[in-house]
């Protein structure tokens, strides 16, 4: 067991965890932050994507102990049901989600890409989204939502 001290969505947590505990299980089970979803546990689907120290990562491919001292952002740190943030609002406006299971992973991946990528063309948006799997939407409405979010963000 190892003591982990990690900041998640601006709250500091200290927990005693097994060294083998996945970050995804740590967030969901130890911190009850069940918005981060687990879809494949082998790093392909992207449903478990969170942001660690500014970079989007697969939480199923990280151990909780690796985040000791880190700053983690999850979907619970975006807007609330009463006040969606602009990206979440764009997803709703463009019907970019159906079952919603992959959505937290897409939102965190998009949060990261909106911070660092110009995303000036649809091809660039589609390329950036290609690390996340969605089985419901066929991606077109997600592309539309990101394009709208880029427009509202403005150029980098």
């Amino acid at each position, binding site marked *: 067991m190892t003591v982990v001290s990690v900041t998640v969505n601006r709250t500091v947590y200290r927990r005693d965890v*097994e060294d083998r505990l996945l970050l995804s299980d740590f967030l969901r089970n130890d911190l009850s932050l069940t918005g981060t979803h687990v879809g494949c546990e082998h790093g*392909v689907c992207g449903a478990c994507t969170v942001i660690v120290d500014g970079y989007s990562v697969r939480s199923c491919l990280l151990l909780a102990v690796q985040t000791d001292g880190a700053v983690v952002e999850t979907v619970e740190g*975006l807007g609330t049901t009463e006040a969606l943030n602009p990206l979440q609002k764009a997803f*709703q406006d463009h019907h970019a989600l*159906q079952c*919603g299971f992959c959505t937290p992973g897409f939102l965190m991946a998009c949060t990261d890409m909106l911070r660092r990528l110009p995303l000036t063309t649809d091809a660039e948006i*589609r390329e950036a989204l290609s690390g*996340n799997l969605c*089985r419901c939407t*066929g991606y077109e409405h997600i592309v539309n939502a990101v394009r709208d979010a880029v427009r509202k963000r403005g150029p980098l």
Partner: protein
Amino acid sequence: MDVELRPKLVGQRIKRFEDPRLLTGAGRFVDDITPPGTLFLAFRRSDHPHALIKSIDLGSALSVPGVVAVFDATDIENDLRPAIPSSRMKGYYATPLWPLARGKVRYVGEPVLAVAAESRYAAEDALDRIQIDYESLPFANRAEDAVADGAPLLHEDAGTNAIVVRSFGRGDVDAAFAGAAFSVGATFRLRRKTPVAIENRCYLAEWDKRRSALTLHSSTNIPGVIRDVLSDCLDLPGNRLRVIAPDVGGSFGSKGSLYPEEMLVAVLARKLQRPIKWTSDRLEDLASTSQAFDEIMQAELAVDADGRLLGLKADVIGDIGAYSIYPWTGALEPVQVVSFMPGPYRLENYQARVRGVVTPKAPTGPYRGVGRPAATFAMERLIDMAARRLGLDPAEMRRRNLITAPEFPYRSASGIIWDRSGFQECLQAACDKANYDSLLRKRDEARAEGRWVGIGFASYAELTGIGSRISVAPGMPINTGTETATIRIDATGSITAAFGIASHGQGLETTLAQVIADELGCRIEDIEIQHGDSALVPMGTGTYASRSAVLGGGAATLSARVVRTKVLKAAAHLMELPVDKLVAHNGIVSAPGSNQSITFKEIANAVYAQMGRIPHNAREDLVASETYDPYFGTATSATHLAMIEIDTGTYGVTVTRYVVAEDCGRVINPMIVDGQVQGAVAQGIGVALLEEVIHDDDGQIVTASLADYLIPIAGTMPPIGIVHVETVLPPTQGGFRGMGEGGTIGAPAAIANAVSDALSAMGIEITTLPITPDRIFQLITQQGSLPQ
């Protein structure tokens, strides 16, 4: 304003009420629920395709900290009855479904034993310490071998591997072929798929000692069916057995059957009197969730000199996997392949045989489109092969054979009755939307540059919103043709509408609210739609088979109408006006021509909470529970048009243009319909180009990760152009047709035709899906036409 002229919510792009919770991590999927004291299951699964279980040695499994118990089939033998996927079909054998393999395993991935532990980590540790000894048995891996005489039997009691055999026929096929100008035929092969909902299956059962009652939280889209069958299996009455499907992360059919793990979780919660949870991982999902579309279709089409269809012959072998699935049976997919193969065409002579064959693979079950993607692939390929033979444009070939408006209702050669739907109109609309003539020019210009570019069509019709007259699965005794809506206005004026459906991405909390708001005259934001809970209505099955908008929308309309009448009658007393002078709109009852009005909230308060405002003998609760049965179903039709380019270096196929023209009747929410079409087409493109469950000769599943089983990603999907064609509204309540599956029906055929068109100069016809770069390479090499 006249009531009829007031803006309706049906037809509008209303933003979904589901979204805020799902966008903020506030959704609640089964795996998000963990009651105190929960035990977690991990399964040891068969690594043999066909073997006897000789012995199980638990070793030191029970000494792993946190491990509570280990169960094999013998430990639960007296705790339940098996589920029997029965059918009235003659000669069909129903394989019993048990939670754990009994004495023998029949596919790699079949659950053999389960460890219950305080954590999933501990349960998996224990699995490693258990030794199972098997005696291998012979097996026939391929359906064409399993169906042969003398093949090793998977279920000895059945006496055969062909547990489903059925024939269809109409007219004189031999005479039709004898009188034909020519015929075209091939053996078409659609390779096995797996649905890949992004949420893996998950079950949590809780036993309530106080009531001796069980609550099962299940990632299912058929909570009502699961409640009913488990009631029999566990001998628990429905009022002590509740199945809840909270937020469910996609299904596409894969969560629409009863599963062994689901049964075991329920059995063990009662046995151990503790909450029991199992969450599938992706390896287990790819190995054990119901698979689909594994069809060998020998088909031949007879045509006259003008391109008119004279006769069709089909002989289909469906690989249904190791077990007949509950409740749909293994007949679901293969029988629909032959019953839908004549398609939306005028065709009088048809003869078909289908055999559903058990093989040592995961059971097949419903998957978006069910049978029709395969049927449409074969038929639409034959149409194009015939058109090419005649030198006829594929659009013109279809125009000559699609059923025309005056011919409806048309009884298809397999007995399906098509009601009036836009068969011809969709073809025309797809051509118009894509600017077909200009696409042809672009294709020819690209070919002149040496590029491999092709255009393909697919036209099809499907039966949706099926009522009680027709079984959703052949011979299935369960009624799936009714839906109940219970609507009530409570004392605060808020409105609750409860259904038997189980939305899992379709947005039914939004679309059904649109229907109710229009019919009841209330504010849409005052409505809560409840679904996904077997306790809501006396009998509900769930959401599948493109039924929920038609049946749920119909039931919503009927119930809302009754409640509106009660609201107006109460308002008439309160306003001292005749009821026929009153109208309800947007939560207000008013009398046109006067300035009197009263809100629903005031009416509800008067009805329930204020003594004497309504005469006691005239007071009625503002509730209604009505059931809708469309009796038959209604035809949804479409034409897809795809343009593709094959990379002449890598043989990879890129879809460059895609258009869908569909007639789904009255559109409730165009935004949601577009989303359904786009998602379904993406799955169809996966069927056509990427997806294939592969078993090796040892019966092992080779595609056991998402790096091996590929589904479409954002970078490879084209934008989809969609045209909603509304011809004559069907006779369903509200004029709705089902539309959740069509995209997956049309896309495989349209792409197969486009690739065949691109390779037509080499004489290549696509007969196997998916069309991988390797398959194109093989075809070109075999043809001896490998370009420089």
